[in-house]
C-alpha cells in the first residue's frame, strides 16, 4: 500500500487533520496563517500528484474502510474531479498566500486560528465533494464546507456581513436539504447511495414520478448552492461583506463545486434513465442560464461597488457554464469544464486586484477610487488584464472558454445563433463594466491629497501580495496559450459523461 494508492483520501485528509489542531492550539500572529498555507500547499501538491495519476490511468478509485462499494463509501476521482481539485486547492493556496495582510487588517489578530481552521475545513469539505463517489457523502461534505463558509463570511468587518451570512445560511441549508431529499427519493427507488451504482440500478426503475421529483429537488438544491439565476440573491452580498481572502477563495471555486455535482447527477445518473430529462434540462436550464448571463451582466454594469460587481459578474459566468452543459453535447461539456477552470483563474485575479485596492484604500466603492490607476498603477493594471481575460480577448484564458463555448453553441443551428447573440451581448456588457472601472481609474484625477496622503495611504500593496496577484494574472495568459491541462482533462471527461447517453 504505497502513498500513491492513498492519494485520493490524502487530499481530503491533510486539511482535515490539521484543522482541529489549528483550532485547539492557541497560536498568535501569523502562525495560524503559516500553518494553513503550508497545509494548503501540501494539498495542492497532492492534487497535482492525483491529477497526474488520473491523466495516466483514468478514473482513480479508493474504498474507504476497505469495504467494497456500494456497501462502503467509495471515492472516485474522475478527470473532472481532478480538475475541480486543482481549482479548489489552487484557489485556496493563492488566496492564502495573497491574504495575510488583508485578513489581519479586516478581522484583526484575535481568533485568526479559528478562522483559518474554518478555512481548512472548507477546503477539506470542497475537496471531499470533488473526490467522493457517494451521493450522501456529498451532502456531508457539502455541509462541512458550507458551515465553514458561514463562519468565515460572518467574520467580515462590517455588520452587514452578519445579515449576508444569515441569508447565505438559510439559502445554503435549504439547498442542502433539498439535495438531501432528492437523494432520498433516488435511494427510495434504487436502494443504493453510490453514484455509479445508482445509475446502473435506475435502469430497472419503472415509475418515473419519484425520480422526476428527485431530479427536481437535486436541481433546485444545487442551483441554490451554485447561485444560478434566479437563486443568486445570497451571493453578491456574501462576497461583498466576507473578508477579502475568503471572497477570493469562494469566488474562484465554491459555487462551481455545486455545478460539478449537478453535472455528475444529470449526466451520469438521470440522463440515461429518466425519459424527458434531457428536454427538462434544455427547457429549464438553457433559458435560466441565458437570463443569468444577461441579468448578471446588466446589474454588474450599474453596480457601484466593485466586489458586488464581481459577484454579479459571477452570476453571469455561472450562466455561461450552465449554458455550456445544458447543450448536452460533448463540445458543450468540454466548454463547461474548461470554463470552470478558467473562471477560477479570472475571478481569483479580479477579486485579488480589488482586494489589494481595498487593503490600501479601505473602500471598494468605485466612486471613492478616482484616479486609482495613477496611485496604484500595478494593481490597477492587473485588474485590467484580468478584466481583459474575463471579456475573452484572444491570448487569454477567457478567450479559450469563449471559443469552445461558441463552437459548441454553433453546433445547434438557428438556436445556436440566438445563443451566440446572447453570449456576445453578455461579453459586450462585460466590456462595459470593466471599462467603467478603467474610466474611473485612469481618466479621473485622484482627489487632491489632504495633508500628506496619510489616511488613505495610497501606495502600492506589499510585495508578497503583488507577486501572488501577478502570478495569477500571468496564469490567465499562460492558460490562454497552453491549454493542454484543462483541455486534456475536459477531453477525457466529456466522453465519460456523455457515455451514459449512448
Amino acid at each position, binding site marked *: *500500500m504505497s502513498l500513491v494508492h*492513498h492519494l485520493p*483520501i490524502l487530499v481530503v*485528509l491533510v486539511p*482535515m*487533520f490539521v*484543522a*482541529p*489542531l489549528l*483550532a*485547539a492550539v*492557541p497560536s498568535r500572529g501569523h502562525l495560524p496563517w503559516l500553518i494553513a498555507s503550508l497545509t494548503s500547499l501540501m494539498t495542492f501538491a497532492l492534487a497535482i500528484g492525483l491529477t497526474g495519476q488520473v491523466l495516466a490511468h483514468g478514473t482513480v478509485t*479508493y*474504498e*474507504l*474502510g*476497505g*469495504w467494497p462499494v*456500494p*456497501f*462502503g*463509501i467509495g471515492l472516485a476521482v474522475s478527470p473532472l474531479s481532478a480538475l475541480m481539485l486543482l481549482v479548489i486547492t489552487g484557489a485556496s493556496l493563492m488566496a492564502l498566500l495573497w491574504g495575510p495582510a488583508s485578513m489581519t487588517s479586516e*478581522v484583526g489578530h*484575535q*481568533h485568526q486560528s*479559528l*478562522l483559518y*481552521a*474554518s478555512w481548512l*475545513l472548507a477546503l*477539506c*469539505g470542497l475537496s*471531499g465533494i470533488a473526490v467522493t463517489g457517494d451521493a*450522501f*457523502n456529498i451532502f*456531508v*461534505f457539502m*455541509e*462541512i464546507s458550507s*458551515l*465553514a463558509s*458561514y*463562519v468565515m463570511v*460572518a*467574520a467580515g468587518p462590517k*455588520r452587514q456581513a452578519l445579515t449576508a451570512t444569515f441569508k447565505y445560511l438559510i439559502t445554503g441549508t435549504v439547498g442542502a436539504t433539498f439535495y438531501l431529499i432528492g437523494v432520498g427519493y433516488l*435511494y*427510495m*427507488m*434504487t*436502494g*443504493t*447511495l453510490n453514484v455509479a451504482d445508482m445509475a446502473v*440500478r435506475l435502469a430497472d426503475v419503472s*415509475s*418515473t*414520478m*419519484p425520480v*422526476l*421529483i428527485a431530479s427536481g429537488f437535486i436541481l433546485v438544491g444545487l442551483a441554490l448552492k451554485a447561485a444560478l439565476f434566479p437563486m443568486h440573491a445570497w451571493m453578491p452580498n456574501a462576497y461583498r461583506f466576507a473578508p477579502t481572502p475568503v471572497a477570493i477563495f469562494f469566488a474562484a471555486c465554491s459555487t462551481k463545486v455545486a455545478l460539478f455535482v449537478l453535472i455528475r447527477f444529470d449526466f451520469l445518473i438521470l440522463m440515461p434513465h429518466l425519459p424527458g430529462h434531457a428536454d427538462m434540462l434544455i427547457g429549464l436550464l438553457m433559458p435560466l442560464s441565458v437570463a443569468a448571463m444577461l441579468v448578471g451582466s446588466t446589474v454588474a454594469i450599474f453596480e457601484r461597488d466593485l466586489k458586488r460587481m464581481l459577484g454579479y459578474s459571477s452570476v453571469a459566468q455561472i450562466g455561461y457554464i450552465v449554458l455550456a452543459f445544458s447543450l448536452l453535447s460533448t463540445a458543450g461539456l468540454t466548454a463547461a469544464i474548461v470554463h470552470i477552470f478558467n473562471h477560477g483563474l479570472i475571478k481569483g485575479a479580479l477579486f485579488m486586484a480589488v482586494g489589494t485596492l481595498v487593503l490600501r484604500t479601505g473602500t471598494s466603492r468605485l466612486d471613492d477610487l478616482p484616479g486609482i490607476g495613477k496611485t496604484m498603477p500595478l494593481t490597477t493594471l492587473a485588474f485590467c488584464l484580468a478584466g481583459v481575460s474575463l471579456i475573452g480577448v484572444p491570448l487569454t484564458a477567457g478567450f479559450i472558454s469563449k471559443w469552445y463555448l461558441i463552437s459548441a453553441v454553433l453546433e445547434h443551428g438557428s438556436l445556436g445563433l440566438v445563443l451566440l447573440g446572447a453570449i456576445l451581448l453578455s461579453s459586450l456588457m462585460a466590456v462595459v463594466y470593466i471599462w467603467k472601472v478603467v474610466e474611473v481609474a485612469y481618466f479621473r484625477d485622484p482627489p487632491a491629497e489632504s495633508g500628506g496622503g496619510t489616511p488613505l495611504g495610497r501606495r502600492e500593496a506589499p510585495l508578497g501580495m503583488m507577486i501572488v496577484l501577478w502570478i495569477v494574472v500571468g496564469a490567465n495568459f499562460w492558460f490562454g496559450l497552453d491549454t493542454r491541462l484543462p483541455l486534456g482533462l475536459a477531453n477525457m471527461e466529456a466522453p465519460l459523461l456523455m457515455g451514459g447517453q449512448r
Partner: protein
Amino acid sequence: MITVLGLFTLTFLVIAALATVQSRNLFVASMWFCIFSLMMAANFLILDAADVALTEAAVGAGVSTVLFMGALSLTAEHEHVRERSGWLPALVLGLLFAVLFAASFEQPRLGDPLAPVHQHVAPFYLSETPRLIDIPNVVTAILASFRGYDTLGEVLVVFTAGIGVLSVLSFSPKKNQQLSGEGVAERVRGVQHHAILRVAGKLIIPLLMLFALVVQFHGEYSPGGGFSAGALFAAAVMLYGILEGADRSAKAMPQDWMLRLAALGAMLYIGVGIVCMMLGGNFLDYSVLSSKPVAGQQLGILLVEFGVGLTVSTVLIMIFNAIANRSTY
C-alpha cells in the same frame, strides 16, 4: 393499535408544526417545536428506528429547544407582524405539496418488503454484520464502520459549528461584557430562588450523565452511540447551567478546554483512520487493528464512537455556554 398510534403521532406532528409557525410568541413557538420533535421521535420509534428516536429526542427536543430559548432570551420574545406578502410562496408551496402528493402514489407503500430499499444494500448489512463485525446493533456497525467516513464528516460538521459559534460570538466590535456586572450575574444565575427545582434537578444530573455513559459504551448492543450519548451528556451539563447559572457551568467546563477536547475527539477519529493506513489497510479499515479482523473492527468502532461522543458533547456544551453566558445587549 400501532396504526392508531402512528396516525396520532403523525397528525399531531402536523398540528405541532402549524402551531409553531402560527404562534407569534416565540417562546411558545419554541415549546411547540419541542413537542414537534418529541412527536417526531415517537414516530421514529414506531417506525423501528430506535437509535434515531433517541438522538432526535435528545437533540431535537432537548438541546435545540434549550438553544432556541437561550437565543430568544437574548433577542426578542415576540415576532412582529410580518410585512411580506405570503400568497406567492403559499401558491408555489401548495403546488409543491400537490406534486409530492401525486408522486406518493408511485412510491412503495410503508413497510413494503419488496421496496428497492430492502433489496440491494440493506440485506448485505443485515446478513454480513454478524460475520464481519459481530455486534448486535447493525446501525452502529454501519455508522462507525461501513459508512464511517460519513460519520467522520459529521464529527467535522459539529466541530465546525463549535468553532463557528465561538468565533461568531467573539467577533464583537464592542467588547462583549462577559458577565462582570452584578446585574448581569443576577440575570443568569439560574433559578436560584427555586430551591426545590434546584435540589431535584441536581439529583437528576448524575443519573443523566450515567445514562449518557451507558448509551455511549453500550451502543454496540442496544440503541445508542456517540451522537446520542454526546447530546445526553451535554444536556446534563446544560441542566446544570440552567439550574445554577451558566457562569458556573462555564467555570466547570471551561470553553478552551471544551475546544481542545472537541478537537481531540475529531483527532481521535482521524487518528484511528491514519493508524489503519499505517498498518497497511485503507483509511478507516479497522480490520488491520488487530490480528483478528472482527476484533479489529470492534476496537475501531469503540474508539471512533468515543471520539464522536467526545466531540459532540463538548461542542454542544461549548455552544450552550457561549450563548447562555452572553449578556443582553
